């Protein structure tokens, strides 16, 4: 997503104290692959070598929120620990776990409108969506809402002016450069182009979330019959 000619690395991170229990580490002001890579690197380094009093880390587009137990540590100690991790963090990320997520593009309420707005046929929209190489950038908003970056430029639309209510869980929706598979029935202003039987909230206590941040995702087309079989199976 970094345009050609942009600086290869984001600015040196900025550490911002948050309330009595966190430090926000910012790797830039605008969304870029370079900034997000830095977020992932620090997140991985922290998971491998947590400092005393570390509570949890929340990765986002350009920043990582690091929570600590104020009974055990403070902002300055946390910031020093994070700086040390940054100097020792590996230069490259391990190759990501890959997932294939089935999508049924039949009975998709917004497919025709997306095609019209993008100046494409519905098949071309589907093929473009299937051709995308997606990365789990972050979870946000609500449980299991995994924001997948990497929607092909031909499909990038602003969100609708007003949200549609009651969009079913399992909807495959797109807006901007992103795609996600919903986990709850909720309003959304994103465009509904398909349905997936994959559950991001797996219901498996050993592995409750299908993806980790940083994982790679590819979509695979399925028929309505296969959707019904997988959805109810």
């Amino acid at each position, binding site marked *: 997503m970094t345009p050609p000619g942009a600086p290869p690395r984001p600015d040196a991170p900025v550490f911002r104290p948050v309330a009595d229990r966190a430090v926000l580490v910012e790797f830039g002001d605008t969304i870029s692959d370079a900034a997000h890579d830095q977020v992932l690197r620090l997140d991985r380094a922290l998971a491998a070598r947590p400092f005393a009093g570390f509570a949890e880390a929340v990765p986002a587009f350009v920043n990582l929120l690091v929570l600590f137990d104020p*009974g055990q540590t403070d902002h300055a100690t946390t910031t020093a620990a994070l700086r040390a991790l940054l100097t020792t963090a590996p230069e490259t990320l391990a190759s990501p776990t890959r997932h294939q997520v089935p999508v049924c593009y039949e009975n998709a309420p917004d497919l025709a409108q997306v095609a019209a707005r993008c100046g494409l046929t519905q098949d071309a929209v589907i093929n473009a969506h299937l051709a995308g190489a997606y990365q789990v950038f*972050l979870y946000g908003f609500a*449980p299991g809402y995994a924001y997948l970056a990497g929607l092909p430029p031909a499909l990038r639309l602003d969100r609708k002016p007003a949200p549609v209510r009651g969009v079913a869980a399992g909807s495959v929706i797109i807006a901007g450069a992103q795609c996600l598979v919903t986990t709850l029935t909720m309003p959304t202003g994103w465009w509904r182009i398909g349905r997936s039987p994959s559950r991001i909230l797996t219901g498996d206590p050993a592995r409750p979330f299908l993806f980790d941040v940083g994982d790679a995702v590819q979509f695979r087309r399925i028929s309505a019959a296969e959707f019904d079989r997988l959805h109810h199976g």
Partner: protein
Amino acid sequence: MAEALFRVAQAGPHVTLQDGGRPGLMRFGVPQSGPMDRKALAVANIALGNAPGAAGIEVSPGGLVLDCLAGRVDLALAGGGFVVDCAGRRLGSWQRFGIAAGDRLVIRPGPWGNWCCLAFAGDLAVPRWLGAAATHALSGLGGGRLVAGMELALTGARHGLPPRALPCPVWARPRRLLQVVMGPQDRFFPPAVQAQFLSQAFAVSDSHDRMGVRLTGPALRPEAALSIPSEPILRGSVQVSGDGVAAVLMADHQTTGGYPKIATVLSDDLDGFAQLRPRQSLRFAAIAPEAAVALARARAVRVADWLARLPARLD
């Protein structure tokens, strides 16, 4: 093992099962949840000899009517000032008391507060999600919302503790002065707006729920129309929407958001803040991060000491 059984005769909206919540999962879009007034649940549980985060019921201003169908068990209530009636006995809402088969417990809103926690001497058999019974209101995941007709079973029910009024400490009262650390996006607000934020009064609006509390007060307009990348949110984030309206994010907050956060409220202040009713006023006071940590430590010690002494005071 002794068992007790309850049936919900009536439950207002937003009456849910809650426990200590599920920390550590914000990276998956899951906030901690748990009671809006976490200290209230801890007090009620400790008054019964439970762990502070054991599962109980969070009662909203909608109220709750529970019928005890079978068994005998001790209960405790803490939190807002609700009006309570158990089998015809009028009780305060800071109370430990027994209930037995045939008794009806009625909890209605009273003179102050929004939330009140009901704890049970025993283990509530309730659905858990990711290890916790805390209900995430938006999804309904966890123990869930209480609805009329629902039955609640209790295992390991204990009874026989002397009924007592619970002392209501100063730190459990509604809190109208909220300590904040400015930021992490205070830089998007002109100095005059930051000064307004700290000098003027705000009030709780009618738009408040487990996700957050919108405030009325001066419009806090950011410098320019902003498009900041969505970033992590904390319980206590003071988020300002494009029209300058501030909201304090609470137990079931969304985990990321693209509105700037002018400041973040110290964790300890959020329980008392949750008990402020619509139109009650509040102010923000900024402190330095180092002072915030020192204050958090001092307050945690004060609450822990009080809780540790509570059982002896109720003998």
